[in-house]
């Protein structure tokens, strides 16, 4: 397990998997350690933000290495999103992956995805399970504004932009779904472990 300081008030812990990051997060929450400010799971990491006046990074690093990961049980939920595959990057993605746009759509809608972790924006879920033939690096220059509901891909992920925001992913299409609602007790619709499918709008 690799530990890297991220400034003087945060520790980035590399973990083997999203599940391991979640387990470490739960163990830290259960430890009720003073000085913990924020726990942010990543694709294969957990970022621990602290109050350095209450907790030292060295002490935290020691606690993290001794904390044993606890099993996490949560029943996955299933979601289906009807998608208009008319995104502005569809033809570019087809060209870069050496296939017709219709084949890009077929492959994207053929898979069942799993929510690995949330981040980037409120309710934005990183979905794993993308067809390897559609794997592309992020755009070299991120767009300053991507519309809400955009269904996009990057690297091994697909995702839906919950609201208009800057973004570096390739946009395949769009869907009409409310992914984040602060009036709900659980504001984010998608949680790690949930199963997601996209269906082509008729």
């Amino acid at each position: 397990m690799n530990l890297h300081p991220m400034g003087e008030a945060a520790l980035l812990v590399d973990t083997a998997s999203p599940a391991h990051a979640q387990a470490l997060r739960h163990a830290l929450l259960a430890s009720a350690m003073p000085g913990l400010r924020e726990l942010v799971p990543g694709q294969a990491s957990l970022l621990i933000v602290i109050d350095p006046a209450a907790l030292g990074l060295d002490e935290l690093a020691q606690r993290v290495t001794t904390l044993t990961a606890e099993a996490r049980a949560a029943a996955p939920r299933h979601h289906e999103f009807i998608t208009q595959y008319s995104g502005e990057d569809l033809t570019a993605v087809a060209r870069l992956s050496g296939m017709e746009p219709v084949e890009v759509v077929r492959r994207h809608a053929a898979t069942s995805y799993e929510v690995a972790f949330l981040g980037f924006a409120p309710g934005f879920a990183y979905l794993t399970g993308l067809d390897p033939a559609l794997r592309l690096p992020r755009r070299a220059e991120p767009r300053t504004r991507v519309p809400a509901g955009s269904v996009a891909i990057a690297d091994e992920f697909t995702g839906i932009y919950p609201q208009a925001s800057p973004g570096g992913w390739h946009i395949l299409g769009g869907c009409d779904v409310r992914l984040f609602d602060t009036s709900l007790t659980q504001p984010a619709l998608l949680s790690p472990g949930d199963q997601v499918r996209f269906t082509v709008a008729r």
Partner: protein
Amino acid sequence: MGVPASGAVDIFDLRVANRLVGNPDGEAALEITAEGPVLRFTEAAHVALTGGKLEALLDGEPVPMYQTLAVKAGGELACGRVMQGWRCYLAVAGGIAADPVLGSRSRDTLSMLGPEPLAAGITLPLGHAPQPAPSFYLRSPPQYAAMPPLRVMAGPQQDWFTPEALLNLRRDAYKVQPQSDRVGVRFDGAPLERGRGQELPSMGMVAGAMQVPPSGKPIALLMDHGTTGGYPVIAVVISADLPLLAQLAPGTAVRFSDVSRQQALAAAREQAARLVRDLVAADAGLLAARALMNLAGGYESLRQAAISDGKRRIRIRK
């Protein structure tokens, strides 16, 4: 759930502004970027302006920054442009009674959460003003005319970059791009090239993290940053210098210098100590004398510009 803490991008000047009007640190104040509004106070109030150098008129007379100002009922505070630095804070005794969303009364511009951005014609409600009436100034306030090098610590992915990139970041000046906002400050300068081609797994981010997209132009994150990001982090601006990062106006060139974790912690402690040490209680006479001294010359340019154009009027009421 993917929501950052948000809040003032220059937390030091927000805290100073709140303390100058006797508020606790967490009270909501106005963050002013580049140019400020015209405010009409329906009730008497105590206010304070901090941050970048702002030309402001209270009932037509220039007012100083970094000290308590008494506003009469019906008074008008006309804020002009931020002349040095980029952002100002206007605190009102009692705080602005905005409704919190997920525990924050700050507008998160990326998440689109929190109170709506201000617009001309709206009325802002105030909380209960503390008693007795506040009367303070800040000794040796920050100057944002010449920016010192921003202090950084090595980032978690420093080893993803070529030796030239690490040298460039420490040797060259980087210029703030106009697309910069509360999400991040975008820089242009000598490109920061990666030595590795692979994609980075997305990971949690902090304010101050300097992400480098494949273009090689770094982006230093501010308070409305996405909670995770997928570009490698070459360096992290230390907490004590986040206020300086937030005060960089587009077009400003800035350099970066390395510090250790111990130096970063010491700088944060010094900044916290300064909030207490440099805040001076003063009577009205001393504040008036200080105002005169600081305002020799006045703001002729601002007066001539007839700033009360009616487009930026916001009412403040108790």
